[in-house]
């Protein structure tokens, strides 16, 4: 099934991807953000906070935003 994934980490891409039916939020996160911890991200499905075992539906919009991002200083 087709869902919209917005990855606000790295370059911040937003794109439709095909995923297996009945995939949970937790499983999608582990596929998209291998090696990262879900607790370090704000994960929203259709703009709402969700449980990690929530099953995704066709057309869902999932965003993942790090809670900590390093700033810098302009030299």
């Amino acid at each position, binding site marked *: 099934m087709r869902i919209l994934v917005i990855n606000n980490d790295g370059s*911040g891409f937003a794109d439709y991807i095909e995923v297996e039916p009945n995939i949970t939020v937790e499983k999608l996160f582990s596929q998209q953000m291998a090696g990262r911890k879900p607790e370090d991200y704000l994960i929203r499905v259709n*703009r709402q906070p969700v449980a990690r075992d929530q099953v995704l539906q066709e057309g869902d919009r999932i965003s993942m935003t790090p809670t*900590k991002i390093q700033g810098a200083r302009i030299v």
Partner: protein
Amino acid sequence: MNDDHRTIVRIANLIRDQVIAQPAQRLAAISADERQLGSTMQRYLSLCRKAGLAVSRHWHLAASQMIQQADAVLRDLRYEIDSRHRLQVPAQAQVATLSDIARDLDQLETEFHEWDYDEKTQDLSVRTEDIELEGMSLGAFEVKLHLSRLVRPDPVASYSIIALDPNPASGRDGITHPHVSDERLCPGDATSPIRAALEAGRICDFFLLVRSVLQTYNAHSAYVPLDSWNGLPCHDCGDTMNDDEGFCCQSCDENFCESCSSYCHHCDTAGCLSCLESCPECEDRFCSDCTKACSECGGKCCVDCLTDELCPSCHEKK
């Protein structure tokens, strides 16, 4: 809180208009850059030709000068190419619809409790909770997105960070956060996702990203590090001094206040009162490089008081 439906529609329309217009703005900037790039390239090629001509006529000095000038132009060319690359038109992003943007504004209320919109300035703003980094309380911040200039080649110009209960770095009123100077955030690792969010009209993502940067301390790249936020302590007396008030001793590399430091009377090097030695003859202070032992008695005094490597007493005896 402003939940006037008409205001929401106005905001959504403004955002969408800006987002749709951005490829044209970007192309205009690219066009100007390319003219400049062409001109710089012409200069570089001209200098290379002249250098080649000078070499063929054995005018080595002229050739060397041409090559140096060509090197300088090459550095300019590299900078201009980088600048052009940053303006590269991206693949068409998922541009938010009006209803997407309206839903984003709803989400802003969930994430930030409320948002404000100033009709006059066309600024959309949210407030963060109090920000505390490594025990330093910096207060809450207002993140203000200027909708009239939403998409710019440099997205930093599109928004401002205003300290609501400022606790700026000592002596640096404009630095209210380690990564904020004069209301401008240096977003660091969030630069690309912020740009992507603004270009797609994902307003809530933009505010969430900015908040994540404000909640994070990067000690390696801060305008003022947190351990110097309240000023530097003098290594001798312990008094707090502003970042630009202290003196760094060139010998021991510690920071000292004005009262606990001095300078070498011979070479003007700054130093602390422990590292600077007092000449027994003239009683002025000198660094270790500017004091020498008398070749006769071995007593130390400053180079100004030595004559033929002898201290005044030994010189007088001779």
